[in-house]
């Protein structure tokens, strides 16, 4: 098998199944009555946690492939990003359906009045265009540059997601802060890379006349 075949036939299908494990565990616990006294709250927490985790994992792909010198990792990024959307969608559906039971008035009030819901809701809406434009066809239609620009909004979505969690907890900020720190590292890496590239370009510009002369 070539590396390409290996990725397509083994790694991707395996990853797909692995990414479904959190959902399977929630379903298993629900089936076995292991979600505790307030199952809806529990499903909310777990789908929310996995949304943030998949967002961070997706954002970790670029640093990982550069630092570990594994360029092929980029081929997994789309699937990971789509799973982030998938768990966000589950989280959102759980809120609309199980938690609020389609009570539109209450939902609108919630979204407007509770800032943690406002930002969570906005972040989810911003994820939708990214999911829609994730196909090869859409990349072509938009053109690489524009597509990339659009998909950079994932940085704001991830920040929005972490703030959503920070504002939601009553007092113990421990868990959301872990996400905040990891996200800061992932975004910090990108800033650092950009600075490095810029200074490299400057050096090249500075060096070019010497070379030509």
């Amino acid at each position, binding site marked *: 098998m070539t590396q390409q075949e290996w990725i397509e036939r083994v790694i991707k299908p395996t990853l797909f199944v692995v990414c479904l494990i959190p959902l399977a565990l929630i379903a298993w616990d629900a089936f076995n009555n292991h979600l505790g006294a*307030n199952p809806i709250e529990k499903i909310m927490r777990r789908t929310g946690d996995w949304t943030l985790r998949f967002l961070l994992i997706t954002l970790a792909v670029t640093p990982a492939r550069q630092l570990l010198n594994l360029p092929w990792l980029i081929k997994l990024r789309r699937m990971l990003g789509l799973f982030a959307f998938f768990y966000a969608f589950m989280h959102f559906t759980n809120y609309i359906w199980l938690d609020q039971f389609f009570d539109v008035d209450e939902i609108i009030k919630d979204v407007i*009045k*509770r800032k943690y819901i406002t930002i969570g809701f906005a972040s989810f809406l911003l994820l939708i265009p990214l999911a829609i434009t994730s196909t090869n066809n859409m990349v072509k239609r938009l053109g690489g540059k524009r597509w990339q620009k659009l998909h950079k909004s994932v940085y704001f979505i991830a920040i929005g997601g972490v703030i959503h969690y920070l504002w939601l907890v009553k007092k113990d900020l421990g868990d959301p802060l872990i996400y905040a720190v990891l996200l800061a590292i992932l975004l910090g890496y990108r800033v650092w890379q950009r600075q490095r590239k810029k200074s490299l370009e400057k050096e090249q510009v500075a060096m070019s006349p010497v070379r030509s002369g």
Partner: protein
Amino acid sequence: MLIKKSADILSSEITDKRTYLSRREFVETAMGIVGAAAIMPGLLLPGAAQAGTRLTGVRPASPRAPFGTDEERTPYEDVTHYNNFYEFGVEKEDPALMSKNFRTRPWTVTVEGEVNKPAVYQLEDFIQPHTLEERIYRLRCVEAWSMVIPWVGIPLADIIKRFEPTSKAKYVEFTTLHDPAQMPGQRRAVLKWPYVEGLRIDEAMHPLTMLAVGLYGETLPNQNGAPLRLVVPWKYGFKNIKSIVKIRFVEKQPTTAWMVAGPSEYGFYANVNPDVDHPRWSQGRERRIGEFLKRKTLMFNGYADQVASLYAHMDLKRYF
């Protein structure tokens, strides 16, 4: 005190199967512990064996409001495994797991401040003069969920009268045990420890207010605030301070732990009020544990007929 003539069957003794099974499981575990202790007496912790002991001589709950209700009681398993008790961790499952070895004997309660009879009581002496009674109350958490719990305890007014508060006793301040060695949650500054709560004296003397020592006819499990906790059914759950070691009578309004933590979110009164929203939770509705659809939250948690007069001239939006 706990051993008196046998009482009528408590409504709480008629339990659903789920509860019955979980209790049987508990009894089996307890038998195991007792069995082991019989062989190695040194192993039996003084406090650990107390939880889940059946209370006797308890006056059964009135079937009628406000001291009883015909609403379905929340199963024992849920009441004891879905707890906010930050001294044992911030997750709902933490208190049941982390409080297993919590020692509730010996236990003293200090009574001080504006009273003629300040004293330090052994828990047994604190409770001994009173008849225990069962009360089935709704409990409404500020997080918008609720339960129905059969408590066993004593009207706080009866206890307070013994201490003879002076005319300067305008408020009552309660304090939870501070013992980070036993209460792992206190090793982190999640709240300002120890937990402090308070009531206005007329709230404390109100016939609905009680100090609970048990639930479902048994001594309080550690995670529910053993050995002694406050129950004020028309206020949000966090007012119901657990594992009380000090009761202090004061002239000025006490500053509670949650007032320190979030002054804009948690007020001194914390009366259940569907019209005054918490910034994070709409207080208009609540999810009764075990139910799917949310239900409307009632003013003063459904105890308005009994307590609304306490706040007759107050702006409840300001004094939330």
